[in-house]
């Protein structure tokens, strides 16, 4: 087996026993990127020289007590790393590459654990999209079928992990941007509880919804990375103070006696039958493992995506205000005055989806409309959250589809922003409730594209979600399938 195809656990074992060097492992990933990324466009910045220096340093120290020591990874292009160009795949930061003078808490923690950052991955501009098509670097293609999208917004990270360009990757999930591309590319990805991981140093989209999480080749790897990055951070006041449990210890494989909820609202008439069948097959696997399937109802499910498309653009319009060409980013010459400068720097820098969200948010927050839009959406958010709180009184986890279909073809939703928003229908409720949710492979459709199963738990319930996903993964046998590239 090629070194780049290893999981974290497998690579760690070989590094620890000195069967391979960290430099060999890193080179294998770098060579893989050079070989296959032309067809995928997953990696937008290659930090190869620095990665090899770090790899050699780790080899010379020879310490592999940390499970992430010497493990090469890629980060979505919104994670600030000192001295590494980071552009959110937007022309507003690309025209004079923004080079952050500081590290995000997450990449800092990974560095402390010995992981090696080898570059940046493609994303929809400022993470706004479900297909990585709004990136200023162009679309990322799905390793299973390059005519199709890899999903989004963490499409670059998903394609990179699926194509073995790295051992794991970092994504962000505001409205489904880790889970959806993970499902489209046949890997695992977790959106943790809001505030379980620090947002410091990651470019914000919607601050009350943004989360930071890993995308990996299996559930055990998710547990390892989450372990390293989770926990309170004085630089992000919204992180929770709850202690971080040992996530890998939670992977017992035992789900006997657990109650698993199946919410009827996720299985409406007219839904894709293959998607429905894949979740029902998963329910059967859980029954065989000794869990009980419980039919439940989450009555406000249908309102979650409209709710998301109020709260998100409002927060976007506020967060994007900082991109005005003053402290960083795109600049223009011969402005008549400051206001003219702002207008031109922003209009030239931002793409259409970002402009749409800024304008919807500006409108919804303007005098007179705040109560009708933002406050009403915040109240609906409370109702969605109550649905889940009620459900978790009777079940331990809830299972559902991740996406309404398999990865769509490039350009399919080009002229219809609302059709793109509808890709999120199974992904927004968890965002509103701030609960952890992950995607794990649950088979293949007739078109040979991967399918994902969503497993969600109560707030701070990552251990349970990971345990259930790991037990499923080991029984279902879909892990480790690779696309032919």
């Amino acid at each position, binding site marked *: 087996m090629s070194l780049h195809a290893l999981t974290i656990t497998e690579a760690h074992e070989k590094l620890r026993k000195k069967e391979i060097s960290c430099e060999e492992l890193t080179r294998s990933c770098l060579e893989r990127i050079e070989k296959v990324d032309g067809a995928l466009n997953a990696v937008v910045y290659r930090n190869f020289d620095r990665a090899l220096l770090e790899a050699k340093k780790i080899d010379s120290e020879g310490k592999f007590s940390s499970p992430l020591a010497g493990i090469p990874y890629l980060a979505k292009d919104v994670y600030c790393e000192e001295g590494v160009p980071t552009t959110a795949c937007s022309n507003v930061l690309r025209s004079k590459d923004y080079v952050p003078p500081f590290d995000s808490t997450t990449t800092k923690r990974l560095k402390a654990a010995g992981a090696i950052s080898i570059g940046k991955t493609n994303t929809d501009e400022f993470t706004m999209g479900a297909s990585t098509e709004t990136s200023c670097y162009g679309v990322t293609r799905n390793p299973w079928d390059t005519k199709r999208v890899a999903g989004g917004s963490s499409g670059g990270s998903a394609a990179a992990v699926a194509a073995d360009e790295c051992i794991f990757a970092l994504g962000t999930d505001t409205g489904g941007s880790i889970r959806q591309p993970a499902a489209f590319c046949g890997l695992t990805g977790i959106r943790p509880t809001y505030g379980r991981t620090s947002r410091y140093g990651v470019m914000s989209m919607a601050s009350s919804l943004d989360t930071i999480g890993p995308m990996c080749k299996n559930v055990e790897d998710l547990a390892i990375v989450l372990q390293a990055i989770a926990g309170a951070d004085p630089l992000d006041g919204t992180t929770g103070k709850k202690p971080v449990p040992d996530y890998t210890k939670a992977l017992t494989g035992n789900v006997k006696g657990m109650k698993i909820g199946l919410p009827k609202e996720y299985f409406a008439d007219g839904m894709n039958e293959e998607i429905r069948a894949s979740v029902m097959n998963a329910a059967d696997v859980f029954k065989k493992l000794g869990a009980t399937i419980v039919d439940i109802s989450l009555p406000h499910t249908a309102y979650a995506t409209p709710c998301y498309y109020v709260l998100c653009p409002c927060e976007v319009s506020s967060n994007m205000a900082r991109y005005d*060409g003053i402290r960083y980013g795109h600049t223009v010459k011969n402005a008549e005055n400051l206001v003219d*400068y702002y207008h031109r720097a922003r209009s030239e820098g931002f793409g259409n989806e970002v402009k749409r969200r800024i304008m919807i948010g500006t409108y919804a927050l303007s005098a007179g409309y705040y109560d009708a839009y933002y406050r009403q959406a915040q109240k609906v958010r409370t109702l969605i959250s109550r649905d889940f709180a009620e459900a978790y009184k009777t079940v331990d986890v809830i299972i559902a589809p991740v996406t309404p279909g398999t990865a769509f073809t490039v350009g399919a939703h080009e002229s219809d*922003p609302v059709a793109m928003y509808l890709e999120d229908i199974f992904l927004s409720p968890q965002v509103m409730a701030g609960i952890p949710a992950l995607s794990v492979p649950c088979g293949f459709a007739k078109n040979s594209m991967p399918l994902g199963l969503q497993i969600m738990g109560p707030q701070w319930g990552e251990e349970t979600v990971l345990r259930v996903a790991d037990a499923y993964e080991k029984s279902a046998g879909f892990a480790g399938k690779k696309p032919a590239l």
Partner: protein
Amino acid sequence: MQMEEFGSMNDEYAHNTTVFCMNNTEFIILHSAFIILKYSAVLHYTPPIMTALTADQVRHIAKLARLNLKEGEEEKFAKELSAILTYIDALQKVNTKSAEATAQITGLESIFREDRIRTDNVQPDALLATSPLPIIDHQIQTPSAHGST
């Protein structure tokens, strides 16, 4: 002139000010309070929710958002934004009488920290260095806020 303006808004206030004889600072504070009152009156007025925007409305929103629109973009965005507004209009039907607004989903309230400048993570000059504009004496030189530069 100023007193007349206040008088038209609030006679009682105009009366009080003649009694107390304000100095400049007090005047500014009270004046600001009136501006806030004026705005809150606007905030309490809920205009009808619209699901179709005209090109003129889009131009106005773009101006508020500090965006220029190119020829033909008003119509394009009017169509797209109207479709989005129609989609999010579904929320207006939801009965939210029993629900408080959620601003922070895990229940955190008022997180405080010491009011201290931290330079252990990043130096101020390093942050300034990312600016595309000239730096003079630790400050960014921007185009003039008034008129042409």
